[in-house]
């Protein structure tokens, strides 16, 4: 097979890739012009028929989500863009925003036209300073050129994009947490229904979409449905619920790998191919012990599961939660899974928003159990306790409002099940992990 030619990342290494002039020289905003010549329903159908599934983690079909908006609503309808990219290991949205912001803005404009929205709020995590600067400049260029504002390209369509910066909270990546945060409140996710499409931001119908999804919208409008469906994995005929995994995907590769980075590849590449062919393998002559398939909330693949396809369906077939954000983190065989899991548990305990007791308490229990293990005081019963706690928190057992706890539970379930013998050996040996910050109170 010929090497895949990047599309979403085609422009990122060009000099001046962020400028409007450079974007337009590459045919930028022609896709928007094309969309404005169609009806909003036609644009929605194009995205629906392309099979595009959201790139933010859940993989919900984008066009279908748009059709959930009430018909003939007097407005306003909002498009909230989720650029709160915070899942550990994930950075594809950052690269798109920093290097090709106009591709994102074009996707936002096309999407807003399709859903009849005249205002889009782009919720950007605060830590992304360079993304903010690139987007701010790009938005200003668009206003000056009549690509944003009133009567875009003489079509009668008006659009404002407002950049809104978050304040370093993972929960704001949950779509209703994001909405609450945008409204100026603590980012406590809402009970659904009502779903945002019915009652979202400022209690108005709202669509929440991801940055990479917006880049895909631009390219589908530019290149067509057939192009998008020629890439990736079609639905499994044996599974009537499988919506397929079409299109290119930005895989984030990091951890113990020689060439970390963001790689645009057809959906469905295997973890092995990504790590060996593109990532140049594991450094220092080490072997793979485990791989995070799509952000830590998705769990772990073992070395024996490296031929898992990284499409929407693949990771689930080997007990992971899903493809998530396609953030692939490689862990070598010199690394303790106890330490890795502690790191994951600490993250979720820190980021639980505190609204639901099972999540607030459960994530910290798991952290404490693993901390105890690392201090050489774990018992074999702790493994069962970890399984019990992880099986009790989240939307799957039905004890929490949002999925943060499911994401906190999954790496625990996967690690204890798939690497149980390593955990048992670690506990029995009574060994301790080295904590470089142990002497620093407050580093916890």
């Amino acid at each position, binding site marked *: 097979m010929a090497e895949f030619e990047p599309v979403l990342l085609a422009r990122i290494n060009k000099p001046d890739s962020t400028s409007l002039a450079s974007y337009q020289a590459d045919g930028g905003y022609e896709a928007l012009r094309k969309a404005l010549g169609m009806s909003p329903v036609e644009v929605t159908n194009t995205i629906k028929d392309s099979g595009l599934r959201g790139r933010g983690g859940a993989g919900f079909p984008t066009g279908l989500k748009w059709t959930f908006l009430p018909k003939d609503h007097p407005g306003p309808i909002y498009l909230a863009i989720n650029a709160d990219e915070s899942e550990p290991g994930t950075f594809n949205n950052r690269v798109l925003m920093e290097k090709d912001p106009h591709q994102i803005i074009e996707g936002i404009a096309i999407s807003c036209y399709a859903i009849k929205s005249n205002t889009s709020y782009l919720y950007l995590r605060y*830590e992304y300073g360079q993304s903010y600067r690139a987007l701010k400049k790009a938005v200003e260029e668009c206003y000056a050129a009549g690509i944003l504002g009133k009567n875009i390209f003489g079509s009668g369509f008006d659009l404002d994009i407002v950049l809104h910066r978050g*304040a370093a909270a993972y929960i704001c990546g949950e779509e209703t947490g994001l909405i609450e945060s945008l409204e*100026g409140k603590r980012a406590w996710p809402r009970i659904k229904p009502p779903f945002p499409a019915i009652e979202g931001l400022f209690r108005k119908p709202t669509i929440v979409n991801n940055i990479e999804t917006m880049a895909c919208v631009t390219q589908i409008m530019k290149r067509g449905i057939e192009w998008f469906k020629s890439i990736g994995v079609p639905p499994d005929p044996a599974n009537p619920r499988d919506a397929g995994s079409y299109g290119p995907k930005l895989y984030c590769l990091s951890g113990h790998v020689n060439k970390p980075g963001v790689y645009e590849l057809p959906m469905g590449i295997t973890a092995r191919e990504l790590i060996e062919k593109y990532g140049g393998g594991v450094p220092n002559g080490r072997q793979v012990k485990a791989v995070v398939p799509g952000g830590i909330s998705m769990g772990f693949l073992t070395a024996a599961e490296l031929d898992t396809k990284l499409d929407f369906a693949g990771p689930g077939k080997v007990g992971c939660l899903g493809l998530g954000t396609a953030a692939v983190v490689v862990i070598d065989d010199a690394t303790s899974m106890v330490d890795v899991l502690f790191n994951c548990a600490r993250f979720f305990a820190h980021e639980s928003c505190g609204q639901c007791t099972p999540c607030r308490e459960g994530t910290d229990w798991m952290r404490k159990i693993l901390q105890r293990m690392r201090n050489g005081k774990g018992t074999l019963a702790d493994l069962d306790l970890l399984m019990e706690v992880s099986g009790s928190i989240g939307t799957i057992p039905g004890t929490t409002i949002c999925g943060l706890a499911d994401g906190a539970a999954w790496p625990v379930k996967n690690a204890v099940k798939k690497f149980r013998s390593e955990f048992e050996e670690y506990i029995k040996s009574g060994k301790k992990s080295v904590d470089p910050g142990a002497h620093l109170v407050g580093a916890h």
Partner: protein
Amino acid sequence: MSGTQSLNGAGPANGGGRGVLSEEIKEQIRGLYPKYPTKRAITLPALHLVHDTYRQVSVEAIREIAELLDLHPSEVHDTMTFYQFFRDEKAPLGKHRVWVCRSISCMLRGGEELLAGLCDKLHVKPGDTTSDGAVTLEFAECLGACEGAPCMLIDEDCHMNMDQAKATQVLSQLA
């Protein structure tokens, strides 16, 4: 709170009035009104404006933000404290805010050692500010620069592929 409390860091720009927010900041906050259908939605942007400028959001500043946004001060305080991002007058930020990532991709490549090493170097614990007020050093959860692990964020700029020597070098160049 009475007017006798310390308004450390928020004084010079206030034009001599009783308030702590400068007229310029207030004007910037008012300038955001047309962008949102509710004033409450300006809470985070307002907190950022104040926090970036004064390195803290004092009780008095909260009161003034609330007044500008037609909110009760407790509403602003509730939102502000949820994020654990904003500093109050008890622990204002130093001149520069340095975040060292401790999440998985960075941890696998020495992020924890980097954080501990910088703490030792600067004689602070995570979250503290150096005695000269130059640097506040904190841990961060995933900064989204995992291809350049370990990484650290200094104010608005991310520095990738750090080690102790490189990080010390970058910090020594801060003005």
